[in-house]
């Protein structure tokens, strides 16, 4: 490893805190440590800064400030939203989600099954798209909430939020969307959208980790998850994470200015990275829907080689990316998103996600393009598989030796 800073292309995992965000936060760790609930001016002044952050965040997503609740993470926002939706619709016992949701939604829904809820997991096609007809026909009078993500963290796929929201509204069903990957990357005006609840997280938009927010449309009934003091208007108890909130506010202000950059410069970097890899490495394919994708994300499968080996090789060159391979997940099974898409096991194990941000440069893309063909060639030379011999004679492709349940 050299001492040069890494080429960081793992921005869907987390982003760097922006220097301006950090500057704005610092005083709230030291001289301005007051409690925003205090009567005295010392604390009350801090409260004004929280109001400002709420306005900035509302501005970014086209909502009203009183529709924003600060939380401690995207995961907390997801949990709060879904639990609130079912608590305020106590007679309804059915949830609809997609198979490609983040674990914060997927595992919560599966957990609720043990409490007697029915969950429909809408499937996706080979490009990761959901079928709106399937979604529509899954809605019943018993459905309490539909939760479909705005953008997928692994493929970058963007889902048709407006149309899904319209379907829900027609049926009088609450609609929640996990927009953790979308906020700050694509423009949104919630005042004009049929979205009732929306989750976001600071650390995906250059604010710190451990701060999130939940948007709750004004007319929507809400029940708090964290009960206690009167903070956040009684909707989320706990003395505020003031530096985090201030940071998220500043990051939202910067993101509002930078969304055009995401969709021009970052998109161009991503496109150049992707087309160069496709041109220079044989037997690769793109996972996801190229027509409806976040501008920063690119998920590529490298046939016949394994993702962790690719990541480690990239890491040696100071390049940070991630993979849907089983070996990196610790679960022995490849990414649930790629599996839901029916991506062959061979490709799922060899998938690499590059996710860029406004902090990436042409030089970063050059560095990846420069080393990628060599890494692929080296690992392929060691692999027993190739286009001519895609699997061992005694085993068939994409099935377990036992013909087991993992497919």
């Amino acid at each position: 490893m050299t001492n040069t800073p890494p080429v960081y292309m793992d921005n869907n995992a987390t982003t760097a805190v922006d220097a301006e965000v950090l500057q704005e936060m610092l005083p709230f760790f030291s001289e301005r440590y007051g409690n925003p609930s205090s009567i005295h001016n010392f604390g009350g002044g801090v409260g004004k800064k929280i109001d400002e952050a709420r306005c900035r965040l509302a501005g970014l997503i086209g909502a009203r400030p009183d529709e924003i609740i600060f939380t401690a993470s995207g995961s907390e926002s997801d949990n709060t939203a879904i639990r609130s939706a079912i608590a305020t619709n106590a007679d309804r016992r059915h949830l609809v989600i997609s198979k490609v949701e983040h674990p914060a939604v997927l595992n919560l829904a599966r957990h609720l099954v043990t409490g007697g809820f029915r969950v429909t997991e809408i499937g996706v096609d080979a490009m990761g798209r959901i079928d709106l007809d399937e979604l529509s026909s899954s809605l019943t009078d018993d459905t309490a909430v539909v939760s479909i993500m705005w953008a997928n963290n692994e493929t970058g796929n963007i889902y048709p939020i407006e149309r899904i929201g319209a379907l829900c509204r027609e049926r009088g069903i609450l609609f929640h969307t996990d927009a953790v990957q979308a906020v700050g990357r694509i423009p949104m005006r919630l005042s004009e959208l049929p979205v009732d609840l929306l989750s976001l997280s600071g650390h995906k938009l250059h604010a710190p980790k451990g701060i999130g927010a939940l948007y709750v449309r004004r007319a929507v009934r809400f029940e708090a998850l964290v009960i206690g003091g009167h903070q956040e208007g009684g909707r989320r108890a706990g003395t505020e994470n003031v530096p985090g909130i201030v940071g998220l506010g500043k990051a939202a202000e910067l993101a509002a200015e930078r969304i055009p950059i995401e969709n021009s410069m970052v998109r161009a970097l991503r496109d150049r990275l992707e087309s160069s890899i496709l041109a220079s490495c044989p037997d690769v394919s793109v996972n996801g829907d190229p027509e409806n994708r976040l501008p920063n994300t690119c998920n590529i499968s490298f046939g016949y080689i394994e993702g962790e080996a690719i990541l480690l090789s990239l890491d040696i060159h100071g390049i940070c990316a991630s993979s849907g391979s089983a070996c990196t997940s610790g679960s022995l099974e490849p990414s649930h998103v790629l599996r839901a898409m029916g991506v062959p096991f061979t490709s799922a194990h060899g998938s690499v996600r590059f996710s860029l941000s406004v902090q990436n440069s042409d030089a970063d893309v050059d560095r990846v393009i420069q080393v990628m063909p060599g890494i692929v060639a080296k690992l392929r030379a060691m692999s027993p598989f190739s286009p001519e011999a895609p699997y061992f004679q005694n085993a068939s492709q994409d099935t377990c030796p036992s013909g087991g349940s993992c497919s």
Partner: protein
Amino acid sequence: MWDYSKKVLEHFLNPRNAGEMAEPTVVADVGNIACGDALRLYLRIEDGIITDARFKTFGCASAIASSSVLTELVKGMSVDEAAGITDDDIVRELDGLPEAKMHCSVMGCEALAKALALYRGEKPAPEDSGRIVCRCFGITDNKIIRAIRDHDLTTVDQVTHYTKAGGGCGKCREEIAEIIRYTRADMAARAKRSSQSPPRTNLQRMQQIIQVIDDRIRPSLRLDGGDIELVDIEGTTVTVALRGRCAGCLAGAVTLRDVVQHTLREVVDAAIEVKEAP
């Protein structure tokens, strides 16, 4: 990212003996691309001696490094010597593997066992037979039982780390827990039987001590990156030296008394005293 030893990274970056072999005596394929790792082992065997070994591996860094050290280990060995190589030998050569990656070293051993069986014209090893417990990865009860015995495993997660069984849909985890329960009960019964008949001659005692150190103590020390060397046996006094991570480690004295002496007293003879070589 995993916490790999320098040795694993070194073998991953500069794998020895990677690539095809022109005219191998035997070729063994294990694993499956669907399950995330697969290994093809080539051996050239002349007059019962392995004169060359090469590999091709689909898998993560630890799978590639395990394959690489395996080929280094077997080169120059006789077929009989090679048959004695265990997954612990691979792990030791790599200065340890993260526990969740133990199955990578197991895969190396399976390939070796399969290649040697092919060479001898034998049937597949017994763990290939048996009843499939984990359908996701095609793992049999025999293989699980062997992993529990060889590595003194106590939890389902450990079994998953060594064999992959239970790491997919998870449906087989209850059954794995049941296998752990009866296998450990059986292991305890055996240990008790052997401790009830203290060795009658010095020679018997020495043989038992060597066996217990080889089969039980060393494998568990190696899991933590350590090792043990038997220096001397005089009556009931056993002198050993600790190597690797155990050597010079603050807890060294505790390791000696607690692990080695306790095990030897329990299994071989209650009168045993363990000393560390100066």
